């Protein structure tokens, strides 16, 4: 385990140094990423200036939720993007090389590329959640603080799981499909607003199939001290983030299954 962490850090270091060779491009990409995310957030501000609340949620409360989701996603997006281009590795047969090395394939792929420009999203998410925390009057307890941190970490785990699942599909299709973005990017878009606003069938997808609600809506209720119109109990809201971890473990199992039935394209 320690060995794996050390290896990952080494991979990360190489990747970061590589990107720092193109410093101007890195700065521009980060600003660009920040800008695109920023103008989308401006959209939320504009809507709240017209509507005041979103089914009982104030702007600051939605901003807090937004920050939680995007922090988790930003971590996953920065540190696990190697899975994104996995389809190419399968098609070119590059994956064979990874199999020859005496380390876990998931670890090697995750470390393949640390996409620094995604930090633009991270910076914005920190800014938004920071502002929301000062604007809101949350009575912070140790439990709530711990829940916030756990939500972000488990959120990162869950999104990493989704990216692994997305890559696993490539074992069968030999290309990574744009469609799986529905779950990752669409999931972020969905869960940055309270789940209670959506229609039941749609809410069900993000509660039971891809449990993104477990690392956003439910813990946020507990932290903000809001009553849930869906009627979830408080203990569940505190326990929910763990589902993110379990989801990651399940995805790793599926990945292992995919690796076992992998047949090289042979080219």
């Amino acid at each position, binding site marked *: 385990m320690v060995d794996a962490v050390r290896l990952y850090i080494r991979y990360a270091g190489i990747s970061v140094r590589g990107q720092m060779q193109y410093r101007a491009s890195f700065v521009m*990409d980060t600003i660009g*990423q920040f800008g*695109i995310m920023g103008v989308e957030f401006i959209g939320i501000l504009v809507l709240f200036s017209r*509507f005041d609340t979103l*089914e009982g949620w104030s702007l600051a409360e939605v901003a807090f939720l937004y920050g939680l989701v995007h922090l988790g996603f930003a971590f996953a997006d920065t540190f696990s993007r190697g899975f994104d281009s996995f389809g190419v590795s399968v098609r070119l047969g590059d994956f064979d090389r990874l199999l020859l090395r005496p380390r876990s394939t998931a670890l090697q792929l995750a470390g393949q590329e640390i996409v620094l420009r995604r930090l633009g999203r991270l910076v914005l998410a920190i800014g938004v959640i920071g502002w929301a925390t000062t604007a809101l009057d949350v009575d912070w307890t140790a439990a709530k603080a711990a829940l916030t941190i756990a939500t972000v970490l488990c959120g990162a785990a869950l999104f990493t799981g989704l990216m692994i699942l997305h890559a696993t599909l490539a074992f069968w299709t030999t290309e990574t499909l744009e469609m799986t973005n*529905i779950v990752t990017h*669409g999931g972020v*878009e969905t869960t940055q*607003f309270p789940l209670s*606003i959506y229609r039941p069938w749609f809410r069900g997808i993000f509660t039971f199939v891809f449990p993104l609600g477990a690392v956003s809506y439910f813990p946020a209720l507990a932290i903000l001290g809001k009553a849930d119109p869906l009627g979830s109990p408080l203990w569940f809201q505190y326990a929910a983030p763990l589902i993110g971890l379990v989801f990651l473990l399940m995805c790793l199992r599926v990945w292992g299954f995919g690796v076992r039935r992998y047949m090289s394209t042979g080219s």
Partner: protein
Amino acid sequence: MRAYGAVLSANFRTLLQYRAAAIAGFTTQIFWGFIRVMIFEAFFRSSTAAQPMTVDEMVTYIWLGQAFIMLLPWNVDRELHNLIRSGQVGYELLRPVDLYNLWLSRALAFRTAPTLLRAVPLLTLALLFFGMGLPESPEAGLAFALSMVGALLISCSFTTLVNVTMMWTISGQGAANMAGIAVTIFTGMVVPIPFFPEWAQTVMEVLPFRGIVDTPYRLYLGHIPASETLFHLGHQLAWTVVLVLAGRWVLSRGLRRLVVQGG
């Protein structure tokens, strides 16, 4: 003229080959449309205050946006990027046609083919099943059709302008980022322009970007009366002329200092 027509149709046919990508994109767009519709419905449920648009108009606006999303000029032409980076742009210069017109025809094909592929099925589904409304009147429908032509012209002349800046920056990423930011917010794609504060609306009304999304969609809804069509077409065409002239100027400056890589 025939040469540009050939370029257009060749690029068009190439792009029509990517049907799997179109189906994937189509599904994504529908899903995205549903998310946005539900978010806006929730906002409308939360407030009794008078809004600049009704919820039904908003739903139609969202589905139009999803159907014509490929018309938005928020990316650069990757193939052109490769031509410039690899130095093959030299061959483009040898062709006995005007380079700007050649690239503008490319952009027209690059925008129109994917748009048609996506818009026709999506509009059909949205009109039949997803609560999208028909144009407010036959005149509104006609005004919408005309202004979509204007939207295409603005979008393509803007794309070409962004493309030619790659002659300087090579990567084109910076320019594409800036374009993406401007397009995302100023077209009305994220939130329709009437929802913005007064001062922001004034700025956005002047800029060219609203001509790609907000103008045609609101003409469709009758939110902008059809009688004002001529004014808005004028706005679109005037900006097209400005963007074409700017693109030509930037291109001619770029060619003067062009060094073709490789050998």
